[in-house]
């Protein structure tokens, strides 16, 4: 369990270039496994192009109260990258211009951004259909100043999407840190108390599951059934949907794969589970991801790999939907994580 980000530990993998190199050498360099490019060329999906822009995902900063071992953001308390109010102003303009129906705020812990509440208030006026905040749950109980977050979310009709790796303490704590499970349960109860996840409230609370180790997630419906059964029976907790997300081999999860000598087997499992039907539904086909400093990416993963959109327009300040529409999506071997099995996106399975 890391206690600091790769960046603070000055780990080689904190450099995106090193990660990309790693993903192109070894079993991929030797040709033992096909490159993602070759794989999707064979199914006629190359070049990979976006469809209509539907989701704008804004990363409000890499600071987080947790240091999860699988974190693809390399987030943690030691990360200082935070979106400024000026950049948020640009985001508000783009939200209106983009025509996206979903706004998705993520981080780090987006709530730790000092302008978070101001921004949510402003953005909720923009007439977005689905306004998502990705909350790690523990932030809600981390400090008194966050205790009223459930009420705040409710007031702005925010759709809360929260990660809970498992419905049992042990696996959750191993991935996310000691005590995380109990705090998450406490936060879920607070969300339920104001109506989130309860039938008829209209307040959506979805949970995100991602495997606590070097294996792929199984069927989303079956896991949702198990989560619901366990959380209702053990804690009387309700939620709406469970999204299963595959861990992508980047950042701290890549570090873990290499250190535990699971990298090759994991990549082989991803390649073997390649599902052509998931390619055209990968989230980069309907999402644009914006970093804390306003750069544009095909997805949050490409953001962490430093792969800016391949377009004339690369920054919020020049945002023009038409330019982005014709771009070619940047891909590498990490993309196998999105196309394995039922596929994986921030909205869970895609097929």
């Amino acid at each position, binding site marked *: 369990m890391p206690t600091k980000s790769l960046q603070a530990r000055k780990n080689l993998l904190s450099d995106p270039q090193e990660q990309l190199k790693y993903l192109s050498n070894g079993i991929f360099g030797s040709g033992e496994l096909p490159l993602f490019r070759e794989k999707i060329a064979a199914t006629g999906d190359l070049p990979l192009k976006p469809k209509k822009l539907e989701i704008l995902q804004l990363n409000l900063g890499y600071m987080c109260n947790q240091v999860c071992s699988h974190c693809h953001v390399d987030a943690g308390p030691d990360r200082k990258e935070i979106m400024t109010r000026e950049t948020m102003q640009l985001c508000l303009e783009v939200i209106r211009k983009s025509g996206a129906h979903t706004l998705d705020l993520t981080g780090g812990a987006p709530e730790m951004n000092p302008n978070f509440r101001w921004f949510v208030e402003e953005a909720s006026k923009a007439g977005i259909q689905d306004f998502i905040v990705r909350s790690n749950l523990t932030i809600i109980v981390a400090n008194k100043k966050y205790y009223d977050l459930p009420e705040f979310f409710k007031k702005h009709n925010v759709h809360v999407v929260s990660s809970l790796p*498992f*419905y*049992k303490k042990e*696996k959750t704590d191993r991935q996310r840190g000691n005590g995380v499970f109990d705090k998450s349960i406490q936060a879920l109860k607070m969300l339920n108390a104001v109506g989130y996840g309860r039938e008829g409230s209209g307040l959506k609370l979805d949970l995100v599951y991602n*495997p606590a*180790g070097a*294996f*792929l*997630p*199984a*069927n989303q419906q*079956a*896991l949702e059934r*198990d989560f619901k059964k366990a959380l209702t029976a053990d804690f009387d907790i309700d939620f709406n949907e469970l999204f299963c997300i595959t861990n992508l081999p980047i950042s701290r999860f890549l570090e873990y794969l290499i250190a535990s000598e699971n990298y090759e087997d994991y990549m*082989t499992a991803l390649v*073997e589970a390649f599902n052509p039907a998931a390619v055209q539904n990968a989230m980069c086909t309907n999402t644009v991801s914006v970093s804390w400093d306003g750069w544009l990416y095909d997805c949050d993963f490409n953001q962490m790999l430093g792969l800016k959109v391949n377009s004339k327009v690369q920054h919020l300040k020049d945002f023009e939907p038409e330019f982005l529409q014709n771009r070619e999506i940047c891909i590498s071997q990490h993309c196998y994580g999105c196309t394995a099995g039922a596929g994986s996106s921030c909205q869970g399975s895609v097929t």
Partner: protein
Amino acid sequence: MMSKTYYDPADLKKFGSISEWNEKLGSKFFEYYNSVFEEGALTAREKSLIALAVSHVVQCPYCIDAYTKDGLERGIEKEEMMEAVHVGAAIKGGATLVHGVQMMNKYNKLSM
């Protein structure tokens, strides 16, 4: 080159290649295998636990690797996995011991 051990974890991935030497029977087997593990009267989760227990009873290292991973993917917990192994062990132990009755029968028959 022949490997120096009887079992190589990498061979599990090559399981499908048994069809190369007998396409008809190989594909029949895999088709049957896949149907067996579909959700039916038993859930796929229950079947995975049965498979794990049987893997131990037949002591197949490939199957143990495969169904431990399958269990993890399905959210099966280690307590459940270990209980399943004990079920297998109990049946195997019981099967040994119940033959003790046969031994007793034979002993009694041959003894004055």
